[in-house]
């Protein structure tokens, strides 16, 4: 899993049926201190995260499909946690 910060939301009318009703967020990857790494990804939100929050993102297909109890969902990135603090 990776650390990131939510920097935006995506709205989409035309999409794959699996994504109907799913919330898509743009997550900027960040280091443990919260500093942005420059890279980003688009992830499905499963925990109710919002803009500006630090989040935990699962970026692996099998685990992501398990989250949605599906064998064939075309999903890989899922926000699975909201981070309060990281101690290093």
């Amino acid at each position: 899993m990776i650390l990131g910060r939510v920097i935006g939301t995506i709205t989409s009318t035309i999409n794959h049926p699996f994504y109907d009703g799913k919330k898509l967020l743009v997550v900027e990857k960040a280091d443990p201190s919260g500093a942005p790494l420059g890279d980003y990804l688009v992830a499905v939100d499963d925990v109710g995260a919002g803009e500006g929050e630090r989040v935990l993102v699962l970026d692996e297909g099998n685990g992501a499909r398990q989250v949605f109890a599906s064998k064939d969902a075309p999903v890989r990135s899922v926000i699975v946690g909201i981070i309060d603090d990281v101690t290093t």
Partner: protein
Amino acid sequence: MLLGRVIGTVVPCVVYEGLQGVPMLFVQPVNKSGEPKGAPLVAADATRMAGPGELVYYEGGREAALALDPWFVPVDHTIIGIVDTWGQTSKDDLGTTLLPRSSFEV
């Protein structure tokens, strides 16, 4: 998933079994500011509705093929959806191709 801008269409004359009729689009990946980043790639279009100029989000790897029907096909990038609007927290990050957050238009 990542964001990309459709910059063209690809018309194959022969495709692998299972890919007949699947639109192939030329997609330029963009960064979080909407600026081109990296080399363009060819992506199958699971929406079957995307066209040049549109901002889309696409999936790569094994999940790319899962978006298609039939799904056991040799594909490494697939367009999952077309972006209507997207907003960013930082206005400094907005690129020229994307309107400001308040406008919410792509």
